[in-house]
């Protein structure tokens, strides 16, 4: 845009912090996520002016105000559609959608699945706290069955969505999960999402201190998390447990937990292959299963040509075939007569 391009000085985290006071509840998991995003931004190799953060409505959707990048705080559920327009207008931009379990999966569920299927090169960070925070504590599309909330005093009778499975079903090409408290891991995921060409869907478990405190504590508390979290790494065996003594094995068409106690060989443990969609589906099935660990990391990753790329190609092709559009010729095409 600027006429004189000089090599910009290296950016740091503070270059991505806006001058606006952050107004989340003290102790909210959103702070940790914001901090990780601000931390990785300078490492992406993208000029700051090319980064756009777009959100809908909800606690997490205040995010763009706190990023010193271009930002758009949209309306409820529509961030993905807004982001699509931005990306198609300027495919050079690095577009980040910030959404939540209500914004992205309830009111914005339709736009979410269509963005995933179209595969525009956009990164979606879905903050999942399994509750409605900004409206003060109603159950969300990811709250568990039976959840007692302000709007479900007798327990919710809604079955929850399983976000990675929904994204798989919508033909998502990059599907991952992180946790607000797992900061290093989250940084890695965010960078990976950025390098994926196509729609990246990153679910981030996020603690809501006020309305759903501790809902992920089994995955975050030091004493228990190793027993409950399976960290997926491409090409590595699916091993978990404090002593790395448990693994996942494929038995028929199901996963099962095996004890690695010397009798069962490590050779039986499934190796994670993030390009294997069926395996990703099996892993996503573990989301709500009690006797299994919760997987985090990249479930699935496949490079498929993006919508934005195909759009540019089509425009180039049309110009090549028909020549650059000529307005006068367009006006005069077909039968004309002169008086």
């Amino acid at each position, binding site marked *: *845009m*600027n006429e004189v391009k000089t090599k910009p000085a290296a950016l740091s985290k503070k270059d991505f912090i*806006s001058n*606006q006071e952050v107004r989340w509840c003290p102790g909210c998991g959103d702070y940790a996520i914001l901090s990780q995003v601000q931390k990785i931004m300078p490492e992406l190799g993208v*000029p*700051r*002016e*090319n*980064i*756009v953060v*777009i959100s809908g409505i909800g606690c997490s959707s205040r995010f*763009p*105000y706190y*990023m*010193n*990048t*271009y*930002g*758009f*705080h*949209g*309306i409820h559920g*529509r961030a993905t*559609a*807004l*982001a*699509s*327009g*931005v*990306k*198609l*207008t*300027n495919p*050079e*931009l690095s577009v980040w959608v910030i959404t939540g379990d209500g914004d992205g999966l309830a009111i914005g569920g*339709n*736009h979410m699945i*269509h963005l995933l299927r179209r595969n525009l090169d956009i990164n979606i960070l879905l903050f999942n706290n399994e509750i409605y925070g900004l409206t003060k504590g109603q159950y969300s599309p990811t709250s568990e069955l039976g959840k007692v909330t302000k709007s479900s005093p007798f327990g919710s009778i809604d079955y929850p969505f399983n976000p990675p499975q929904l994204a798989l079903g919508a033909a998502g090409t990059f599907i991952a999960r992180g946790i607000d408290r797992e900061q290093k891991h989250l940084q890695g995921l965010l960078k990976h999402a950025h390098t994926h060409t196509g729609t990246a869907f990153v679910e981030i478990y996020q603690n809501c201190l006020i309305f759903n405190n501790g809902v992920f504590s089994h995955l975050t508390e030091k004493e228990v998390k190793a027993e409950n979290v399976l960290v997926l790494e491409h090409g590595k065996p699916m091993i978990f447990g404090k002593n790395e003594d448990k693994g996942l094995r494929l038995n028929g068409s199901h996963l099962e937990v095996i004890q690695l106690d010397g009798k069962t060989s490590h050779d039986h443990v499934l190796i994670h292959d993030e390009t294997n969609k069926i395996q990703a589906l099996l892993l996503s099935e573990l989301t709500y299963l009690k006797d299994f660990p919760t997987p985090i990391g990249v479930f699935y990753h496949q490079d498929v040509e993006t919508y934005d790329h195909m*759009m540019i190609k*089509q*425009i180039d*092709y*049309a*110009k090549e*075939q*028909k*020549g*650059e*559009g000529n*307005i*006068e010729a*367009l*006006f*005069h095409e*077909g*039968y*004309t*007569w*002169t*008086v």
Partner: protein
Amino acid sequence: MAEDQQKISKTTEEVDVVTIRFAGDSGDGMQLTGSQFTNNTAIVGNDLSTFPDYPSEIRAPAGSLAGVSSFQIQFGSQNIYTPGDTLDVLVAMNPAALKVHLKDLKINGLLLLNSVNYTPRNYKLAGWESNPLEDKTLKDYRVAEVNMSELVANSVKDLNLSPKVINRSANMFALGFLYYMYDRNLDSTIDFITAKFGKYPDLAEANRRSLKAGYNYAHTIKIIRTNYRIPKAKFKKGTYRNIMGNQAVSFGLVAAARKAGLELFYGGYPITPASDILHYLSGFKNFGVKTFQAEDEIAGVMSTIGAAYAGDLAITATSGPGMALKTEALGLAVSVELPMVIINVQRGGPSTGLPTKTEQSDLFQAVLGRNGEAPIPVVAAQTPAHCFDAAYEACRIALEHMIPVILLSDGYLGNGSEPWRIPEYKKLPEIKTHKKTDPEDFLPYRHDEKTLARPWVVPGTANMEYRVGGLEKSEGTGNVNYTPENHQLMTELRQRKLDIIADSFPPVVPFGNSSGELLILGWGSTFGAIRTAVENALAKGLSVGHVQLTHLNPFPKDLGEVLGKFKQILIPELNMGQLQTLIQGKFVVKTEGLHKMKGVPFTQSDIYNKMVEMLKGLA
């Protein structure tokens, strides 16, 4: 052209104006027949106006009243503003078409029927108690009862075609018949057939022969003793083409984008009768036009807002129910002060209503239909060709003031057609944008003094990163601000921004009398019917004036003054009085409304009769 010997003496007569309606089953090809006749009419140099009227069902049961599709054209040597009131010729391919349309045929008008379809089963299905060809139903008309299908079959015997294909070619027979009646050359349609059916030589040949058979048949039968020649119309100097409203809108958008130095983005969801805008634009990819067929109406408008934020000329189009879905986003567009055009090709409502029929009942929705104080400029197109100017004007306002603009068209304009005087691109008004790339003194919500536009800084511009959203903002910085004084200030600023748009409007100059007994105040697609009626009234010495509004929000600044110069004001609308209510809310004037809610446009006589009634005793 006709090779047969003339068997009876024929004469050619000159007439000024003719109205024809082609009507048949939705599978009979009436729209195609009508558009062929239209192109041919343009070629002979007549002025014209068309009105296609088709069912929303893609294929309603054959022979049913619901399945009748029609195409009307009025053409002549004088100015033609409407598709005409009553018919000189009705083509009724089946009894259902006859049932629906016979009431509009003039006494002694010509009725062309494909008799093969007038079977007991068909006429009963259409609600005739006995065969209308045999009882007294048609005694007041000149009837050409022709077994078109049999005649076509005879002419293509050697081609070995199925009866279905032969029947489908009957429309070309009817077209050929009318070409003879109006002394036309068949070449334009023969070229069309050859191009359309190029891959199927037999089909092309059948259609060509059918067309010629109809022409020759008309030449030989007694009932057509005279054929008619309509002298060329007196057009203003220039080069012309025929154009449909939705097509003209698309041209206007592409031209405005080019003029403003922008790329065009269109995000939308298919909906009748607006889809053609998407169809046209998706074919303009070599102009760099990006079309995004979104998953729903909401995504259509949201992607449009995203495109506006990122720097394209951003457009979405829809019809009433889709407009309702876009409402929340329009509030956001107002709040973020970004330029875009939202097109509503209106149709009959409420709810799904009458998808393929025309109405003007979304004016309130356009002007008022949002939560909060959310002023949006509203521009209305008046004729199919005027759709070009209206679209261009909507883009101009949007870009010069950094504001979303609603463009109102309707089904009648969108699908209707008329000759368009092709403008010279380089003479179209310049359009300036508020793009800014200089970070010096940049504040995202600092408003330009003259236009009240805020700077248009798009992502990708270095050192100007800023955030925007639907929360109330501080004037200047654009930071979130809920304080009472700031909200008052910003609300007034958004209203003032709308009001000053009127500074650029041309003065209101009534057609006909500029003061006196009666002003007809219209907006949008009622232009043609009103103008015809007013011309008739003026010719009879009545004291009337006509103002047709293009700008409905804000109104032109001198409108109140003009209204005050007339004793009576008539506001005809295809709604229950929406403009009337807006006018009476704004100006202290007494007005009378004329409301038609039939899914069809006003006829000139609807308007004329009302004028005469209001002027009774004064003439």
